[in-house]
């Protein structure tokens, strides 16, 4: 009896513990065979760069030279010497840089806590390591970080493609049949290394956006460059040339970043108060933070003044005013919220949580970045075409954010918890005005760009955007009109990106 019982417990335990799946960190992108190499990619129009031949640039070494031969020997000698890292980076390392950016976003998306005296101190780029750490990677911050990263990657890869086909140095396995490749070999000219371009440009930008991560980012970049050699794709010379392009292009983007208005986005109290007063005088309402202690200034009141990528006049994308507090239209929206919170279904709860992407996560721009990366893998896009997807999407998403933030602080519209008495929610109310919904605007812009590039999947993207938008109503933190107007606004803003994309020479 005793032995049977022990056996029984033992078996129960074994069955129970062995049924569990192991949850691994990170995301795995299986290497693909690229659907095309876009040989004319060097003729595509970059987004920021005006002259792709502006950098002085050495020619590739002659394949019959001794120098070149010794570099080929190095490639052969190091073949697959870091299988784990090679597998990590895969054959489209730009996907991994986006994953790194998303993770840094999640790591730094921490709203500052009040200090012992109940005062909120802001993160400072000049002293990033003292609490609160710089950056506070909130949605506007991340929309901009993704946009810079992706557009710089894209422009730099256009330059790389230009020189690849200008010099037309054959792929290494074609030059020497002893060269083995870890991934499906391609005919893409090896000089300059597109992987090194991506490594250098990503390293340069991410270290500016996340200054406390310099060491980690540098390590990743070095690792990638070793892997490009060890997977039989590039020589040292290819990599040096790629790095040069990446660094030069990054400089131009960092110059833009230093003067795009972001350093003034987190406006001081006087500016924030004057925006609220202006709205109060114009409309008779104003938003205020209800946390305790109260946060005196919302997130990035002047993000609406940051320089957009594709929209010439951001104010022209500002929607008309929301319904007056207490109007019939307002009451309908408020009653909808009360009804939803009183009878919240499990499905509504799940949708609210699914798209929440709140503090501590990669934010809505990160969510869409992830989905775009999945699409790129699904359609087997080469690095250049991958970069183009992300450049237009992330650029449009930032523009949508700028337009949305301009609207938010222009109208300074109250949140449901401000306007409805004793209203409780399942999501935390964000620290900025309600109208229009950031989730709706970001998502709609992303869905519009993705639908244009992957028309077969349009319904999926549109449904996601609609769901992300409604999730804020279910969460109790937005009125319905914040969301529906945000969807239209995001779509309109994204049109500006699509107009540019339609004329860039890529099909």
């Amino acid at each position, binding site marked *: 009896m*005793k032995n049977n*019982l022990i056996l029984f*417990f033992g078996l*129960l*335990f074994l069955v*129970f*513990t062995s049924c*569990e*799946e192991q*949850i691994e*960190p*990170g*995301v795995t992108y299986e290497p693909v065979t690229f659907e095309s190499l876009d040989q004319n990619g060097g003729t595509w129009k970059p987004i920021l760069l005006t002259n792709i031949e502006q950098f002085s640039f050495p020619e590739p070494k002659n394949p019959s030279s001794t120098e070149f031969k010794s570099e080929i020997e190095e490639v052969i000698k190091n073949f697959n010497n870091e299988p784990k890292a090679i597998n990590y980076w895969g054959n489209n390392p730009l996907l991994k840089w986006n*994953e790194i950016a*998303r*993770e840094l976003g*999640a*790591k730094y998306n*921490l*709203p*500052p*806590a009040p200090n012992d005296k109940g005062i909120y101190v802001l993160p400072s780029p000049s002293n990033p390591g003292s*609490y609160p750490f710089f950056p506070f990677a909130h949605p506007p911050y991340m929309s901009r970080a993704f946009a810079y990263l992706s557009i710089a990657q894209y422009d730099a890869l256009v330059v790389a493609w230009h020189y690849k086909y200008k010099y037309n140095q054959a792929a290494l396995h074609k030059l020497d049949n002893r060269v083995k490749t870890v991934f499906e070999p391609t005919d893409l000219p090896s000089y300059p290394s597109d992987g090194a371009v991506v490594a250098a440009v990503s390293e340069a930008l991410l270290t500016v956006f996340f200054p406390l991560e310099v060491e980690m980012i540098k390590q990743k970049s070095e690792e990638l460059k070793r892997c490009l050699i060890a997977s039989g794709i590039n020589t040292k010379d290819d990599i040096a040339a790629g790095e040069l392009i990446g660094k030069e292009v990054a400089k131009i983007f960092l110059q833009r970043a230093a003067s795009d208005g972001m350093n003034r986005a987190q406006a001081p109290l006087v500016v924030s108060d004057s925006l609220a007063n202006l709205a109060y005088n114009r409309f008779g309402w104003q938003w205020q933070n*209800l*946390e*305790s*202690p109260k946060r005196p200034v919302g997130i990035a009141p002047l993000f609406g003044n940051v320089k957009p990528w594709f929209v010439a006049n951001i104010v022209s994308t500002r929607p008309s005013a929301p319904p007056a507090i207490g109007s019939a239209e307002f009451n309908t929206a408020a009653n909808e919220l009360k009804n939803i*919170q009183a009878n919240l279904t*499990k499905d509504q*709860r*799940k949708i609210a*949580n*699914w798209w*929440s*992407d709140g*503090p*501590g*996560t*990669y934010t809505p721009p990160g*969510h869409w970045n*992830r989905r775009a990366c999945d699409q790129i893998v699904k359609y087997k896009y080469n690095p250049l075409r991958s970069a183009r997807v992300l450049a237009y999407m992330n650029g449009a998403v930032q523009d949508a954010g700028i337009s949305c933030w301009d609207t938010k602080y222009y109208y300074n519209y109250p949140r449901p*918890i401000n306007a409805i008495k004793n*209203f*409780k*929610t*399942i999501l*935390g*109310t964000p620290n900025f005005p309600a109208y229009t919904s950031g989730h709706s605007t970001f998502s709609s812009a992303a869905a519009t760009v993705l639908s244009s590039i992957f028309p077969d999947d349009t319904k999926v993207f549109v449904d996601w955007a609609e769901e992300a938008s409604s999730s804020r109503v279910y969460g109790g933190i937005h009125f319905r009109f914040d969301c529906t107007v945000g969807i239209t606004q995001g779509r309109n803003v994204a049109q500006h990106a699509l107009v540019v994309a339609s004329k860039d020479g890529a099909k």
Partner: protein
Amino acid sequence: MMKKLVYTFLFLTSLINSYGQTLVDDLTMKSGEVCIALNIAEEKWDEYWEATQLIGNQNIGTFTKQTISPMIGIGITNKINFFAELPNISTFASAGQIRGDNGFQDINVGLKYKVFSLNKRQENFNLFVSSNYTLPVTNYAADYLPFSIGLGAQTLTMRAILMAGAFNEKIFLRGSVGYTHVGTTEIERSYYYADGSYYSTIMDVPSRYVYDVNIGSRLFNKSIHLEAGLNNQTSIGGDDIRRHLAGQPTNKMDMTNLTGRVRIFPLPSSSIILGYTYTFNGRNVGKAVGYNLTFTHQFSTKKSKSII
């Protein structure tokens, strides 16, 4: 009789949690004996450990968790007892704009087996092993801390319980050590950060070691029991709550509590228990003070004379 038992069980499984543990440890039933119990508990905290830092949060104010939990114990044989419990939990905060939650949590079923027993006139010594299994019975939001009513994971606990009494139990000691294997929980998002990125809707909830030591006395012909104890739960692995963020089920949740209990027997077959719990040390949990009130009634389904 069997039918009546099944009905009683079904009714009672509509209530279990950590308060049940002490009761389960205390109870021993002979073959055919049944104990039904109802536990009502409330715990409150206005400070919690964010990692190891004790802090308050004005957007929560005072956090309250209320539990009502029916329980049944059945003597299958003189040495094997079966237990079941199902708590219904409500949570809410005194400040801020976030809603609490409420509902049935996890059903807890367990077996306790008397491995060794030595009973003399004045002294006794008993050793038990127990195992209990918990399973969430409703689709509550586990990733909604601190308001979630549970962690949404299955658990399996193995424990050894030792009881020793002297001077006809005027002094007794009870202690246990155990290991709780905690499974995974499904969450309503597809990405989370836990010292790294996880692209998954599944969170691994840390398993934990538990132990407790209790000293007590049974007075006035055993009609009053007094007891004081120390409980500890230590998670194996898990991450910390990040600065000024909410916790999540992957967190390392450790705590050490002091407990006090008075159990009185108005009738030989029925008891009322008043309990107190104070969490004086912890990590990623609230610094909670809790009270609980339990009613128990024990009866035999056999036509035997002796009860208890």
